[in-house]
């Protein structure tokens, strides 16, 4: 059993890296991750990129939905706004990626504030409806404002360059993604333990009580919308560079539901949970495909029955199963396992 976990002050209690061992494992993980392009398969690197983008978007949604309790069915709209902003800035104005990606975030955040103000009065399913209709409106906008977004023809994004050095290759874009993921994850982790994060949680638990103890609801709710959509926008910007081609069909209601599935499966209100959920659901189509191939080889009549549709069905199923059986998500399972190992042999 591990000792010296006794904490003497509040400062120690809210520390991000609680023990030296956490730091140790994190460094080890960072080394393994950063050396990934040297030894891993290009497909794995591509998957890590995609998961990284999903992590950023999921953390954003988790700040709004998990921490602040404001349910949003319009997260894909912010991702779309970020993606199109950076794509347009990069392709029409030749701006470098380190400007266009944050610009995507800022534009998304601006729209987040625009949406946040009218949504102040709404809660629960009314808020879900309002954000859903916002998503539909944005989808309409990017489909039909053809002079700017190229509509259904899609817009192609030039490869990012820095100091005349092209980063188009997934194994080079990898470092850009990792940088943004690390930075934004740390920022979110820090945010969650400051006054702002505590205010968000207070609003989630009981908005009236939060207001009584002096939390400005307007300010913090709009702030949650802004931060969440900023994350979505940055994820969108990275997405545009990663896929190099944007089409309105990539940003439908289904994408919002995918993000919701990520944070529910990972764990609502937990940053680590968002990471778990995003990685798990990004890898899931491949898991299903592998399983389907395996089953197809075992049973002839199942051969070739795999369909993209199974992935969507799995999203739905996972949302239901986790909400019913394990509302704390993968993060809850993880911390339970961890605790039981920590306290071994005195587990109970």
């Amino acid at each position, binding site marked *: 059993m591990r000792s010296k976990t006794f904490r003497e002050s509040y400062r120690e209690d809210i520390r991000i890296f609680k023990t030296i061992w956490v730091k140790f494992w994190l460094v080890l993980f960072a080394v393994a991750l950063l050396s990934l392009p040297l030894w891993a398969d290009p497909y794995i690197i591509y998957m890590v990129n995609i998961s990284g983008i999903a992590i950023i978007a999921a953390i954003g949604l988790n700040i709004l939905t998990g921490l602040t309790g404001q349910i949003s069915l319009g997260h894909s709209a912010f991702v779309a706004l970020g993606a199109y902003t950076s794509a347009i800035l990069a392709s029409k104005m030749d701006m470098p990626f380190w400007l266009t990606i944050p610009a995507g975030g800022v534009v998304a955040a601006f729209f987040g504030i625009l949406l946040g103000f009218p949504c102040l009065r709404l809660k629960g399913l009314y808020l879900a409806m309002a954000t859903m*209709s916002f998503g539909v409106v944005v989808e309409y906008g990017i489909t039909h404002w053809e002079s700017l977004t190229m509509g259904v023809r899609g817009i192609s994004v030039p490869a990012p360059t820095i100091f005349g050095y092209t980063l188009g290759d997934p194994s080079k874009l990898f470092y850009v993604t990792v940088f943004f993921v690390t930075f934004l994850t740390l920022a979110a982790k820090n945010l969650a333990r400051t006054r702002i994060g505590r205010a968000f949680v207070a609003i989630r638990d009981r908005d009236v009580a939060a207001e009584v103890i002096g939390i400005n609801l307007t300010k913090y709710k709009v702030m949650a919308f802004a931060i969440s959509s900023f994350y979505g926008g940055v994820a969108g910007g990275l997405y545009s560079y990663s896929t190099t081609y944007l089409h309105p069909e990539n940003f439908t209601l289904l994408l919002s539901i995918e993000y919701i599935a990520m944070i529910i499966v990972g764990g609502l209100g937990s940053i680590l949970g968002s990471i778990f959920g995003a990685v798990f659901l990004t890898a899931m189509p491949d898991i299903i495909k592998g399983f389907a191939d395996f089953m197809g080889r075992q049973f002839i009549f199942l051969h070739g029955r795999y369909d993209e549709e199974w992935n969507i069905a799995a999203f739905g199923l996972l*949302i239901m199963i986790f909400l019913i059986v394990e509302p704390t998500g993968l993060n809850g399972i993880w911390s339970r396992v961890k605790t039981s190992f920590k306290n071994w042999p005195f587990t109970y």
Partner: protein
Amino acid sequence: MTEGALYFLQLVISGIAVGSLYALVALGFVLIYKATDIMNFAHGEAMMVGAFICYALVVAGIPFLWAVLITTGIAMFFGLVTERLVLRPMIGEPQFAVVMVTIGLSIFLRSISGIIFGHDNKIFPSQLSDQTLVFKGLVLSYTHLWAMLISGLMVILFFLFFRYSRVGLAMRGVANDQDTAMLMGISVKRVFALTWGISFAIAAVAGIFLANVMVLNIAICLVAIKAFPAVILGGLESIPGAIIGGLVIGVLETLVGGYLDQTLPGVKDLTAFVVLFLVLMIRPYGLFGKKEIERV
């Protein structure tokens, strides 16, 4: 009548026809919301599943009316199972979680149906005449006339059911306050199960009807998304509200489509959502909904 006025009237009439379809779907939302305080995002999928089952039965050679009856039975059973497996464990959970569960259910049902029934359009062996009614230059198809009739009939049935039957009263009681309803000797679980069973059965009927009017494919559940604005506009627990909301959305949509589609292509499909957003901003409880008062 001048050309312009005739065009306008024709748009209004087509709008009412489309709106009565929305109203039919909206009624299903209201039933569940009235009894269980849950907004069922999977309602459109329940309709789609019903329509597909009926289609399969009709193709298998069962006469249409029998097929409808059997479908209703299957749908009811399906509703009971759904309630038992998915919704019952969620009793007492926050509303957010319940909403998410129904969203999960909706995309699950949609994709499973896509796997089983495929994505191609199916022509339902239509039982409704495809003739049109012409009156002083205004055109209305018989199918839409049927939609209006059935919506009207449903409203009367619902009204009588909630007003005069014991079960309807129990449902209203449960919706109002679950604890108090339990104290009065109402089995909340039974009421929930019954509500879901009935609502799935009604959804199946509506779905069969929609499949007759439109083509039958997965996209049929998207009509339900158009019915959200209708219920929100009318007020979530109001039956007349659902009808009026459906009609208003239908008329607005056709008017916008008729006059603005030239300048802004596709804006028609956006109308309902803009209305939804505006209603939520101005009067979130809708035209006839009960205003929730929060005491601090």
